[in-house]
């Protein structure tokens, strides 16, 4: 039996889609093919902005821009003869590449056997045969760099720790993941906990560690539960504990819960937190590789970093290193969110362009609005405006644009997002999360936020912009830890690319995107108002009154400028000024 799947790839062809469905069904019936073909409405076929798309199964061929006139041809050629209608064919390239997420959505995360069936723990067995030097050599060939933000080469980190003498060494998996909008690590821990455990064990072999810790934030209860279950299974099977695979290698793992402070993702604060101390960063050097947990040499790696390791051992560093760019190897998982049609996790080879991620994988911007920028790297990163979307994704490449790869948050912003508001949001986050230990971050952050608040309320002065960048540079130079050093980045990058928007707030006292509540007023025009009353129903401040005859009005004293009436009015009667 053949199946014809129909999809509207634009989001506004509902009627045409229905007509196409009906015509297909009728013509199939007329030709007496009803028993051999099923016509189905589909939600998403992975192609976008090609009008109506049709996919024929089991062949899997996809047609774009399909209209009623094409139906006889499709039935005659593809359904009856099994040939393609060449002029309609749409090639769907799969731009994602799954290494980190290779098992996510495939294996049962609570089954040891299922993981083993997918070559689980064979990387570990191989690492035990190879020994530490060869493992590090393999990692060097792979070119893998840390996915926790800084991008330090993993082999080098391991090699440094290996070189330090110590009676006991530790390895820590950093699963704190505090960036707003990021949840890659949670997904890996929940979907494939064994691969992170395996990666950690291979790291332990390389550096000579005998104990490992998973530091996971307590807000991730399911991740904690699944990792604990996986650890228990490993102990039961003898993959953890003493004399693993009868090689003399012994290793133990424990979970430690984080209380959800962003700063505890910073490695020295994280170590303090595991030790039971307050999560304060301390100056480096000494680096954890020399003096880490309880003063012993310690490796800290991110979840995603570790999830790559078993794959590298199993498939070889060279094959991993063939993916990506000169300086950035392998893949990166991004949490694609914001004003994008398909939000979710994507894993892409390094070197892919931002445009491909947003449009080919993400399906483009929600409601077909104009895209403005992309934010990467969360509170430590910056915005990248649309004119740079053809830049390849990589550590250095994104840095050149004034942002960072970061841990992988990627937020799509459209014309309704105000850049002053965005930088206020991220800076506000860092001010809340600053531990307060050092003055540049504690005082500088607060002062910058104060200035941004003034600007967004229309009380900003032109000198404020200069002041912002002065304080920002002082914070970058003088803060003790990465939080304070990178907190000004969102402000600096929005200032760099969207200075016009700041100037509109400061000079014209206007918010071009209509986001900053103090700078916009809402007003209902009697001519367009039909008196439907939708606005009055959604207004949370009860500021709108009226009836069908007299139409509706907004009481400016009660209005909180939330804009909900503007969003809900179907007749364009609500004006934003």
């Amino acid at each position, binding site marked *: 039996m053949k199946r014809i799947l129909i999809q509207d790839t634009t989001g506004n062809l509902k009627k045409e889609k229905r007509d196409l469905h009906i015509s297909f069904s009728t013509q199939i019936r007329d030709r007496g093919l009803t028993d051999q073909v099923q016509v189905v409405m589909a939600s*998403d076929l992975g192609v976008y902005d090609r009008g109506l798309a049709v996919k024929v199964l089991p062949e899997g061929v996809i047609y774009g821009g399909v209209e009623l006139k094409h139906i006889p041809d499709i039935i005659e050629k593809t359904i009856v003869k099994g040939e393609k209608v060449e002029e309609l064919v749409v090639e769907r390239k799969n731009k994602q590449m799954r290494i980190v997420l290779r098992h996510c959505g495939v294996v049962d995360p609570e089954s040891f056997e299922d993981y*083993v069936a997918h070559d689980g723990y064979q990387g570990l067995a191989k690492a035990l045969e190879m020994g530490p030097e060869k493992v590090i050599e393999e990692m060097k060939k792979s070119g893998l760099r840390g996915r926790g933000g800084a991008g330090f080469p993993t082999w080098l980190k391991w090699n440094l720790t290996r070189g330090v003498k110590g009676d006991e060494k530790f390895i820590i998996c950093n699963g704190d993941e505090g960036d707003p909008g990021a949840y890659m690590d949670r*997904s890996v821990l929940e979907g494939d906990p064994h691969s992170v455990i395996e990666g950690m064990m291979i790291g332990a072999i390389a550096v000579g560690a005998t104990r490992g810790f998973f530091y996971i934030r307590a807000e991730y209860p399911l991740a904690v539960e699944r990792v604990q279950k996986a650890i228990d299974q490993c102990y039961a099977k*003898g993959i953890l504990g003493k004399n693993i695979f009868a090689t003399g290698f012994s290793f133990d793992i424990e979970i430690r819960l984080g209380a959800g402070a962003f700063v505890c993702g910073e490695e020295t604060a994280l170590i303090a937190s595991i030790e039971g101390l307050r999560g304060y960063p301390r100056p480096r050097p000494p680096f954890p590789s020399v003096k880490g947990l309880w003063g012993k040499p310690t490796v800290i790696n991110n979840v995603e970093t570790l999830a790559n390791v078993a794959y590298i051992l199993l498939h070889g560093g060279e094959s991993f290193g063939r993916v990506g760019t000169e300086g950035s190897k392998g893949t990166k998982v991004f949490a694609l969110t914001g004003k994008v049609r398909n939000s979710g996790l994507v894993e892409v080879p390094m070197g892919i362009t931002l445009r491909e991620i947003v449009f080919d994988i993400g399906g483009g911007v929600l409601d077909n609005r104009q895209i403005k920028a992309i934010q990467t790297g969360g509170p430590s990163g910056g915005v990248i405006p649309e004119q740079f979307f053809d830049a390849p994704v990589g550590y250095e490449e994104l840095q050149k644009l004034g942002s960072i790869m970061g841990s992988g948050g990627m937020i799509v912003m459209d014309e309704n997002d105000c850049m002053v508001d965005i930088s206020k949001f991220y800076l506000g986050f860092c001010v809340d999360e600053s531990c307060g230990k050092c003055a540049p971050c504690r005082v500088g952050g607060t002062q910058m936020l104060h200035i941004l608040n003034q600007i967004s309320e229309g009380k900003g002065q032109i000198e404020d912009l200069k002041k912002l960048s002065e304080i920002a540079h002082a914070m970058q130079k003088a803060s003790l830890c990465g939080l304070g050093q990178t907190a000004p980045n969102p402000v600096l990058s929005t200032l760099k690319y969207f200075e016009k928007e700041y100037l509109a707030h400061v000079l014209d006292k206007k918010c071009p995107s209509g986001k900053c509540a103090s700078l916009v007023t809402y007003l209902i025009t009697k001519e367009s108002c039909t008196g439907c009353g939708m606005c009055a129903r959604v207004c949370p401040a009860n500021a709108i009154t009226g009836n069908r005859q007299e139409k509706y009005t907004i009481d400016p004293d009660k209005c909180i400028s939330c804009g909900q009436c503007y969003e809900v009015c179907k007749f364009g009667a609500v004006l934003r000024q």
Partner: protein
Amino acid sequence: MGISKEDLYKMKDETLGKRPGNWIRVGYSTCGIAAGADEVFRILEEEAKTRKLDVKIQKCGCLGLCSAEPLVEVNVEGVPHVFYGKVTKDAAHKIMDEHVCQKRLVENHIYEI
């Protein structure tokens, strides 16, 4: 004494050998559960049991298509292998009734990504 490397290979072969021909996977991570995956999972299991269907219902992690959760992957002989997204309770019943039993794809939920 723990397992050896050879045991690992044996376990792999055994698990692969026992793999069911007909299976349904439900994305069961935080994103899926928040969207109602546990209800969907329960319905699928119940239906499989009461109708005595030869199909194994499994849990898996998140495929990344979080906006389409709950996401259900169906692999049943005689019907093309597809993903269903935004699976409601109603759709879960339909998957068992139409897809598994009648071998017809369910309308309006296919995500071929």
